[in-house]
């Protein structure tokens, strides 16, 4: 698993091999969009446990919950977008299987941004007046040093590791997010000690010598420890512009939250050829991009 400073290519198994039980792991993307699902499936197969998962959650959280990998979940929501409620998350949360730190979406990104700047906290108004403060007694309020305003002091969300899925990357760790919204992948990477990317395609560095692509390259390469080429690595979530999320697959997955998870693991997570198992490359490419 040795790699030179400018050749960061790794396998998905190598990346997950770098993780340790008990770590705080941030997962990029949003809901059912742009999730590093190949890495999630690899974690499900691993003997990792007691993870603190930080995510704008979708089926990444649901699968890790059903695989009993989560000790604590830092979240604002868990949703599959087209399917508003995530059944695996709901089952596990209602069973009290993990601790939660439930915060506003804006507080969440401030926590990452505080960590990214080596700050203890960033102030905001969001959270005041809600049970976010009741159930997170560790989140304090402060009085402004300049006026009598009170703010929430959103603590830094420091990550051991960030895992994200991008469209293209080179072996140095430069990367391009082709989907419309780049979400908070940048801030997950900045908040982490180490960041690992999966990508649809490994490309030559010269591919990024492009004024349009450069506008969608929020993660500079020295934030990135490893890169794995995994075509369709976000399935069943979307990876714009290449493919949308797989609603029939997500519906079938949602239906087995109470019974049938082991079957899902053996059929899909442990499949020798995942892409063929879920219908093949042409099927995934044909999945329409999200529209609401």
């Amino acid at each position, binding site marked *: 698993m040795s790699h030179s400073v400018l050749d960061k290519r790794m396998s998905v198994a190598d990346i997950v091999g770098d993780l340790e039980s008990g770590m705080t792991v941030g997962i990029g993307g949003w809901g059912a969009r742009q999730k590093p699902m190949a890495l999630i499936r690899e974690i499900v197969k691993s003997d990792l446990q007691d993870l603190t998962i930080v995510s704008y959650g979708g089926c990444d959280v649901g699968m890790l919950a059903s695989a009993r990998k989560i000790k604590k979940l830092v979240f604002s929501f868990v949703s599959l977008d087209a399917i508003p409620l995530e059944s695996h998350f709901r089952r596990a949360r209602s069973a009290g299987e993990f601790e939660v730190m439930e915060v506003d979406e*804006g507080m969440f990104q401030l926590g990452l941004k505080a960590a990214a700047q080596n700050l203890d906290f960033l102030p905001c108004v969001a959270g005041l007046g809600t049970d976010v403060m009741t159930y997170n007694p560790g989140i304090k309020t402060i009085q402004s040093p300049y006026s009598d305003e009170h703010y929430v002091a959103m603590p830094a969300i420091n990550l051991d590791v960030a895992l994200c899925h991008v469209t293209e990357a080179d072996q140095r760790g430069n990367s391009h997010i082709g989907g419309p919204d780049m979400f908070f992948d940048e801030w997950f990477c900045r908040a982490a000690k180490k960041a690992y990317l999966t990508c649809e395609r490994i490309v030559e560095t010269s591919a990024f010598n492009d004024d349009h692509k450069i506008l969608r390259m929020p993660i500079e390469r020295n934030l990135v420890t490893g890169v794995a080429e995994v075509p369709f690595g976000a399935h069943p979530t979307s990876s714009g512009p290449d493919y949308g999320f797989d609603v029939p697959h997500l519906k079938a997955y949602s239906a087995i939250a109470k019974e049938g998870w082991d079957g899902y693991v053996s059929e899909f997570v442990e499949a020798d050829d995942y892409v063929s198992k879920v219908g093949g490359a042409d099927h995934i490419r044909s999945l329409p991009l999200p529209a609401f």
Partner: protein
Amino acid sequence: MSYTENDFTLAELCIAAASEIFRDETDEVFATLIGTLPKIAGYLAKATFKPGMMMSDGIYYLAAEPVPVGPRGDYQVKAEGRIGYERVFTIVAKGNRHAFVGPVQVDRFGQMNLSCIGEYAAPKVTMLGVRGLPGNTVNNRTSMFFASHNKRALVANEVDMVSGAGYNPARYPGGKYPKGLDHRQIITNLCVLDFEGPDHAIRVRSLHPGVSFDEVQDNTGFDLIRPDDLGETAPPTQAQLDIISKFDPHDIRAYIFKDNPPGRRAA
């Protein structure tokens, strides 16, 4: 489909009434419209009296014109900018935004729940999570829609998990409301409510045709203010109905309420 003056559905009545929540808005307010009714209501407001209103395509772009609800067919979004989530949160914090949302519960303070019901550590019912409600409610104008007006939705005491903030002084440092806290209206299948009672108490603003104040009160878990001049929710005009049809060409609004009841109850 054609309509006469008295021929409109409850959904269309509520859409027209809900468009009014934007009447007093800033000229170029950014409206976030969550769900079928809020979307069509916002579109109607933009098409009739608030042409500068800004809105997204639901995914990433600022849409120069409302994107019709339901299957889009050949319709292409007409983008006039971008509005990714990071920018949304920046706009939320600045404040010129009106969020029209559909929480699961609301209480007498206007506090909302979107997270869970029952004991927090292992909730009887787990829902979405607080999402952006904490930030919306203390920074932006907030309006709500409830398809079923009953005591499970409009609850006695406080909601199970206060996800969206309200006018409950006990929950703020020094009892002082945040500057941006500004709840506007609640649209339900029975009536329109607002926060214009004493100290922002919830008040019945208008009753849908054929609904009595007592019926509304009997289905609400807290006491409502009854204004002296309480009237009926205005029926949609033909012009409004035509616009509603244009933005909802597949009649998705027929699924907002169970059995798609008429706007005027049979006597």
